């Protein structure tokens, strides 16, 4: 068991996501930064679908009720185990009774904590990812005990990860054209790729809204399927980038589609950060 003593700003249980239920209206969910999530599990030789904790901006305070190993990845928050600062991207041995205290974000937005064998809350519709209406809550709100697996990890034999560069300052998001892109005029297209956009304070696990208005003449569409990474454009010119908890259908024109690595990068951006869209050509 691990005990969440203080829950931080927004802490939730996440895994790869819930894939087979979009036709029932269920979002995919899962870790926002899938790369940091995957590496956290790899460091501990966990299964690639093991559940982890996702911290946002400020992490929680956690007490461990059993011996285990942990790994921290993603955005850097100061992390202290029993008062001693610990590293990211390495396995860390944790003894029963230890306390891990996370600080405030220094770069990026989201940090991942994997435990040996993964967090073992009940799977609902094939996933442990928290989403309100599917699981009871969408995050951890109060003192909570979470079941974890027994450690079978042996660090002397475990694979060492080379810490990947954590440069979240890159402003370019790589995109493909979306289904309604063709409806934009030449000037609108030029504006879309030349404008330096700012992330507004409306950004969460469902969507990221950009501050600058994008003038356009498009009308709404018949409600159609959408996926994480789609850039929607409202009639008043708001650009909304859909994230992992996004609805499965939408009625706004879909002008762009982020690729996976850009979706991971965007999940590490904060309010007031700048971004620019960079068009990729399709392989087909």
């Amino acid at each position, binding site marked *: 068991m691990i005990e969440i003593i203080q829950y931080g700003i927004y802490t939730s249980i996440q895994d790869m996501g819930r894939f087979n239920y*979009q036709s029932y209206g269920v979002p995919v969910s899962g870790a926002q930064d899938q790369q940091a999530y995957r590496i956290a599990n790899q460091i501990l030789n966990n299964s690639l679908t093991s559940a982890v904790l996702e911290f946002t901006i400020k992490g929680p305070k956690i007490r461990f009720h059993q011996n285990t190993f942990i790994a921290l990845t993603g955005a850097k928050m100061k992390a202290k185990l029993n008062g001693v600062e610990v590293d990211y991207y390495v396995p860390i041995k944790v003894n029963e009774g230890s306390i891990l205290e996370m600080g405030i974000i220094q770069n990026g937005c989201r940090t991942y904590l994997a435990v040996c064998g993964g967090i073992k809350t009940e799977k609902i519709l094939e996933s442990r990812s928290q989403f309100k209406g599917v699981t009871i809550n969408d995050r951890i709100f109060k003192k909570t005990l979470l079941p974890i697996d027994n450690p079978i990890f042996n660090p002397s034999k475990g694979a060492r990860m080379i810490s990947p560069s954590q440069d979240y300052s890159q402003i370019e998001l790589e995109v493909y054209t979306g289904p309604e892109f063709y409806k934009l005029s030449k000037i609108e297209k030029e504006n879309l790729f030349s404008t330096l956009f700012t992330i507004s304070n409306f950004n969460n696990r469902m969507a990221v809204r950009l501050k600058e208005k994008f003038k356009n003449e498009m009308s709404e569409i018949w*409600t159609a399927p959408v996926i994480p990474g789609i850039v929607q454009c409202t009639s008043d010119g708001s650009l909304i980038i859909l994230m992992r908890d996004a609805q499965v259908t939408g009625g706004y024109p879909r002008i762009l589609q982020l690729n996976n690595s850009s979706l991971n990068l965007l999940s590490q951006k904060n309010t007031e950060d700048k971004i620019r869209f960079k068009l990729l050509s399709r392989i*087909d």
Partner: protein
Amino acid sequence: MSRRIFRTVPLHNKAFLVEWKQKPSDKLLEIILSFKSAIDKDAKVSRTVMGYQSLLIHMKEEIQNMSLWNEYLNELQIKIQPKIIDKGKIWKIPVCYDNIFAPDLIPLAKSLKIEVEELIQIHSKTKYRVYFIGFLPGFLYLNGLDKRLHFPRKKNPQLKVPKGAIGIGGRQTGVYPNESPGGWHLIGKTPISLFDAKQKKPCFASPGDWVSFEPIDKRKYYELKRKIQKDNFKMLPNQ
């Protein structure tokens, strides 16, 4: 060869859309359902999601060759266009239109210039077609709201619409499967759960099915509510 009535749009290297040009209708719904049932059987396909005019196809592996898919879809169009495949099940959803569950019923009737009883009768007598599920887990997009009940949604959406509330907004009517914000006019409430995450098939209704609303009184509402809480109730389709 017959003229192609759809386009394909790649989203990323493991997903693409098939989008039809024609306006949503029962005929288009049946075409999309036929495509879906054929495509769902393909070993390369992981899952599909429907919209009014479209079908989203997620692949298990990266798409190597889009032109092969285009050819396959052209052949599919020729094969399945003429026949009506799925007539759909019929579901009767019990709804209590009593004022305690219907805060907007009287003002909406006034705005529509009809009697409350007439509004209830029109709303509950119509057979609605389930076009697809989206917006929220278990939210059914229903087609067929009588023109006399069309009314613009509220200017300021309500922050909390209760689970089970029945609403009218624009040309649509539907059931809120869970507590959520919403801008529809609330005219009743059902004790039935439209979404149950504990079931392998979490919604009883599927695209292509029919739904109608069966008026019940408060006593029946609470009786059903108790049965559902005790797990003593299962929705079954009508014959």
